[in-house]
């Protein structure tokens, strides 16, 4: 699956800023967590806990080892969020303290920077660097990652096109990084390559002239003869087991302090990652979505996302959307629901010939948080997504059901990467469970 070509007119230089960054805290060891499963060639241990600074709810974390390319100079970063809703590894530069990763730059010395927004209005900004990424027995060699908040803030201004809540520390991000293992190989893809108007994702920056938008090759996958330099799903760059992942987490009734599970690499490549014939396979559309039927509405922009920490779906209080009038909590929990009591719901996920009914329940978020201050696992956490109202061709504001981490509790959820060959007759990209 390697798609690297040797030809390039721009060289990479090492920017040694990282080595000078002060260590800023460190990941704590979770308390009361059962021992992780035995390590395997393609299985990394997942822990759901409060994250490196505590207070993270429904966050699935793994350890990721990053190495200076081609060397055994490595550092293991704990509490990196497993996110099937994005692609590429992003690490807080403040946590990469003992190694120096080479930052990409052009021949004039302008460094390549990456700006990515997430659905909560947050933004991550920082250099693109290359690392050998190691998890379990797998290696993604010389893979582009984002070093969040590198170089140090103030070296040059974050461009105006890169706006949102800047999450540049453990205190604001709540994790040490994000491991994007979603259904795409690259964070941007062809939209940042074969275009004269690149979106606000990649910038070349210098202390003299500031930052300007740039295109970046995503290699042969994008019909570009230049090698891929975009921030890349590490799994895609593994030498094997590189067509997707499985997130396995045990079932939880209500709430729990912590949870342990597995992130398994590859689908149908080993004895432990077969795609069973009775699995519900949801083929994804060009926007990596499928349909969920909920409250009589078909929501064609639905998705499964381990990086979302609850069930999120259209709210009816504002618009009178039939069948769903769950109250939204008061501030500061106003991105979550607060029904009076635990309330059961059902929905059906659909794609092609697959029709898969799902039962779930929603509890009062204010109560959940108040009554369980030391718990970080909440099965019945949910909130509003979009304003509600009918979903149709002219109103796509309320057309999503976001199946976050609670959906993963008690399931093995497969995410197959776009561009891969068919697995048991299912063509990636798809999700399955």
């Amino acid at each position, binding site marked *: 699956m390697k798609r690297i070509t040797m030809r390039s007119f721009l060289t990479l230089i090492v920017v040694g800023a990282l080595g000078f960054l002060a260590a800023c805290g460190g990941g704590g060891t979770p308390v009361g967590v059962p021992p992780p499963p035995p390590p395997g060639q393609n299985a990394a241990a997942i822990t759901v806990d409060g994250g490196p600074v505590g207070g993270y709810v429904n966050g699935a974390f793994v350890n990721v080892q990053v190495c200076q390319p081609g060397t055994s100079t490595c550092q293991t970063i704990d509490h990196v*969020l497993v996110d099937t809703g994005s692609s590429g590894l992003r690490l807080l530069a403040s946590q990469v303290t003992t190694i120096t990763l080479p930052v990409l730059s052009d021949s004039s010395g302008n460094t390549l920077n990456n700006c990515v*927004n*997430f659905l909560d209005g947050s933004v991550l900004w920082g250099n693109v660097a290359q690392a050998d990424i190691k998890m379990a027995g797998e290696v993604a060699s*010389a893979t582009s990652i984002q070093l969040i908040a590198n170089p140090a803030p103030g070296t040059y201004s974050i461009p105006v096109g890169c706006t949102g809540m800047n999450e540049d520390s453990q205190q604001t991000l709540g994790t040490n990084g994000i491991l994007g293992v979603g259904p795409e190989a690259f964070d941007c893809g062809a*939209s940042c390559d074969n275009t004269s108007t690149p979106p606000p994702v990649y910038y070349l920056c210098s202390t003299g002239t500031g930052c300007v*938008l*740039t295109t970046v090759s995503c290699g042969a996958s994008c019909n570009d003869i230049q090698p891929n330099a975009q921030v890349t799903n590490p799994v895609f760059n593994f030498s094997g087991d590189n067509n997707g992942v499985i997130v396995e987490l045990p079932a939880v009734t209500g709430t729990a302090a912590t949870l342990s599970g597995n992130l398994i690499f590859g689908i149908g490549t080993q004895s432990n990652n077969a795609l069973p014939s009775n699995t519900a396979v949801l083929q994804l559309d060009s926007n990596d979505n499928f349909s969920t039927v909920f409250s009589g509405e078909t929501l064609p*922009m639905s998705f499964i996302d381990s990086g979302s920490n609850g069930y999120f779906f259209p709210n009816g209080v504002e618009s009178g959307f039939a069948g769903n009038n769950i109250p939204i909590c008061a501030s500061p929990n106003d991105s979550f629901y607060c029904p009076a009591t635990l309330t059961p719901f059902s929905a059906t996920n659909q794609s092609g010939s697959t029709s898969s009914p799902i039962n779930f329940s929603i509890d009062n978020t204010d109560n959940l948080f108040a009554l369980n201050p030391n718990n970080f696992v909440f099965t019945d956490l949910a909130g509003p997504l979009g304003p509600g109202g009918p979903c149709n061709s002219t109103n796509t504001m309320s057309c999503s059901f976001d199946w976050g981490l609670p959906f993963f509790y008690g399931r093995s959820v497969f995410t197959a990467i776009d561009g891969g060959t068919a697995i048991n007759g299912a063509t990636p990209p798809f999700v399955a469970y």
Partner: protein
Amino acid sequence: MKILEKSFFLALASAVLMLLFALPASASLGGDVASVHQDQAHVKGTLKTTSAKAFTVHEINASAKTVIKEYVSADGKVFAITWHSQFIPNMQQLLGSYYQQFADAAATQREGHYSHRPLNIQQPGLVFQNGGHMRSYYGRAYVPAMVPQGVSKDDIR
């Protein structure tokens, strides 16, 4: 894998574009029609205008499947904005003077518990809703007091 040397190459497919950042960030939400054209220039988009009920919709289409709709009332003020894009558009540009209110409300929601989830801000002076995932985002923002009489919130789509 013997690709040590290979890692020392970066490919940039084409030249750098500087134009976008010569433009001033100016008010859009709450601003006048002129601000729509500034937003259009900011994303290098094409503009289409349609009238309905008590407002005019200015639809900006740009790269990365970006569609931004700005809702302008009869008195020429932008009272609502919606977006669909692979990437979340520049909120400072689109929200203008309302950006700080958005940022403060979003920061407040982060207090107490960390999470990554769709954003829903419901304040008397600003409603902001955002959802989706990388490569498939959408959302809307509006100022309730500026929504013309007879226009439903469901018309902001």
